[in-house]
Every structure is written in structure tokens, then in C-alpha cells.
């Protein structure tokens, strides 16, 4: 009986965890959504005037890609300028 109760509690916890996953669909059905307090908003093309936009992380790979911004190296799929080949 106790074992069943534990299993039930674990199952509830797992379900609750799975249920927390949030998918923000910006493909057309919605234009914004929240994940853990951060807001993600679809935007139409924006002006990128001098000093307004500062790119700092570029990623490229397929079918998945990952990386973080750093000046130190290329541990993942971040793109840097190739100057000699």
C-alpha cells in the first residue's frame, strides 16, 4: 500500500514536471509568449542603424546547433571570421 502511494506520488511529480514545459509558437498562431519570466516576441524586420544593433553570437550547423558567445575559441558551432585558409 505504501509502495503504491509512493509510485503514485512519483507519477504525479513526473506529470507535473512534464506539464511545465512551455512551447512558445511564433510561427503565426501567436506573436509572443513567456518562458520562465522571459518574454519572446515575434518582430517584423527592424531598423538596424548604426550602434543600435550589436551582434555577438552567430551559430550555424545542421540539424542542430549550439554555442555561446566568447572571444576565446569555438567550442561549439559559433561562427567566427576565417582569415587564412
Amino acid at each position, binding site marked *: 500500500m505504501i509502495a503504491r502511494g509512493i509510485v503514485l506520488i512519483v507519477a504525479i511529480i513526473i506529470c507535473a514536471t512534464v506539464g511545465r514545459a512551455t512551447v512558445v509558437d511564433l510561427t503565426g498562431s501567436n506573436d509572443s509568449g513567456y518562458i520562465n519570466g522571459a518574454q519572446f516576441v515575434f518582430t517584423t524586420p*527592424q531598423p538596424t542603424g548604426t550602434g543600435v544593433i550589436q551582434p555577438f553570437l552567430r551559430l550555424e550547423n*545542421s540539424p542542430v546547433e549550439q554555442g555561446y558567445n566568447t572571444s576565446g575559441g569555438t567550442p561549439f558551432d559559433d561562427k567566427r571570421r576565417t582569415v587564412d585558409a
Partner: protein
Amino acid sequence: MTINAGPWTHDLTFGDLQNTQVTLGGASYFKLLLDVNEPGGSKSLISLDQLQFYTSKVGSQTTSNVGSLGTLRYTFSSGDSVILDASRNHGSGSGDMYAYIPTSDFAGTKTSDFVYLYAHFGTTDNSQAGFEEWALVNAAPILEMNALFPIIGFLRWPSPRNICGDVTRGSWATYSFHEFILRCLAEATVTVASVFRIGWRSVANGLASRVILRPPMFALQPEMKVFSGSANRELAQRICNYIGVPLGQATISAFPDGETYVKIEENIRGRDVFIIQPTCPPTNDHLMELLIMVDAARRASADRITAVIPFLDTHDRIEKINRVFR
């Protein structure tokens, strides 16, 4: 193969991030822009499956253990994702999504601390081709000397192709020249306002403010030289008339075999040179002429050369070519 630090991926400090701070609904956020590039059709979807922010006193890290980057400030939970459709916006470079990250997540972070954004794409919807790029969106644009020069605005507003109609057809029906220049100035005056500690609102709303700001803008550019190609000298002359800078003297002709000949007729050693040349039809000729002018200016020891291209006809094709060679 040698890999050098490039302009696309680099360190950020918390001070950089603080420049993006905005208020939405009474809450404070850091504002970032994501630009995605995917093929068209059914392959245009891409998923952002993880987004994390770390802060650390150590910059330029190279670890493959993301969790060791520093203090975790923000993260998606397991299964969270954002689904984007690259086909909703045409082209690249102007963004597809804003991400607003709560500033409260960064409590206790020092301005000099480094900020790492880790992103993972493609688990739910694969990344197919092209790059994804994150950028800061500065609430107050950062000062650059070129930003003080209003004709750079021609590159920015509203878009090169829209400007083409005005420039190449010689028609200012859509926007009067005066209005056009002032609209271009608007972007530069944001920066100028911060330099001279003038309220942005008064600068943005007042024509007089812009006029008053004009002399100090160009007083800061005493070494500036403006030259024009043959594509639209009238445009270059009117720009120079407006900003009170003489149009530089350059001879543009052709050798007997038809090749373009350019001679800079002024001393531009150590000067800040701007070359105005739309690449309207005949595109190849105008583009080649521009390149030869840049080469001539470089050989004449100009300190800095800026090509002002009000209409960049081959922009999309250049983007594709660049992708091939990346």
C-alpha cells in the same frame, strides 16, 4: 587554417547588456534580437530549445562544459522551446524575434562581469541552413564617429531598395529632399543627444533642435572628405550642400580600352573619406567604379574609407555568395 576573433561572436560584459534595458508593463528587461535564416517552404521552421545566461568574472572562456561557465542566471526548463518560422520575414539581418530577459535574474552582477548566452537550436525543428544570430538592442545607440554623419542614414532608412526609387529616378516625390535628409538625421541625432546631454524627446520632436545640432556634428569631423562616383553626382552634391562640406575633386574617366580610370585630385592622406555611389543600373559598372575609387583612396593613404551606397543592388546576391564561402 587560422581562426581569428571576428565580429560575429565575442565576449559581452554585463555593462553591454545593461545598455539594452527596457521597461515593459512596469517590469525591467534586457532586450535582445534573434535573427534566424532557414530555407523556404516546409523547412523554414526552427526551434530554440535551450537558452541560458551565465555570468562570470572570467572572460573568453572556451569550455565545452556549459554548466561551468559561471553563475546560471536564466534557463529554459526541460522541454521548453520557442518555434520560429524564418519565412515570416524576408531576408536576413533585421531580426525575427525579441527576447526580453528579466533584469532581476542578474541581481548582484557587476558591470565588469562577463555575460555568456548559450543557445541550442534544432531539437524540435531542425536547423537546415544559414546562420542564427543574437544581437543586443541598445536602448541608447552607442556613439560611433560615422553615426555623426547623417548620410550614413541613407544606408539605414527606410531600406536601400525604397531609397532606390528616389535616387535612380531622380524623383523626390515620395519624400522631399529636405524631409528625407531630416529623417536620415533622426538616427544620428539620437547619438548626438547623448553626447551633448540633450533630451532625446526634444531632439526627436523639434526641427530646430536638429538644425542647432548640425554644426557641432560636423565640427567633430574636420578631417572628412566626401567624393562622388558617377552614378548620381547630383545626390552627392546636394548632400554636401546640406551639410556644408565641399564635394571632393576626383577625375573619373576611361582608358582607351574602356577600363575605368579614377584619380583623386586632392590630398586625402590621413583623412576620413566617404565615397557616395549608388549601384543602380548599370550595376556592374557602378560597383566596379566604386571599388576602383576605394582602391584609389586607399593608395592615397586615406585613414578611413566609408562607402555610402544608397542603393545596393546586389545585396541579396552578395549575402548568398558570402554564405557559400563561410
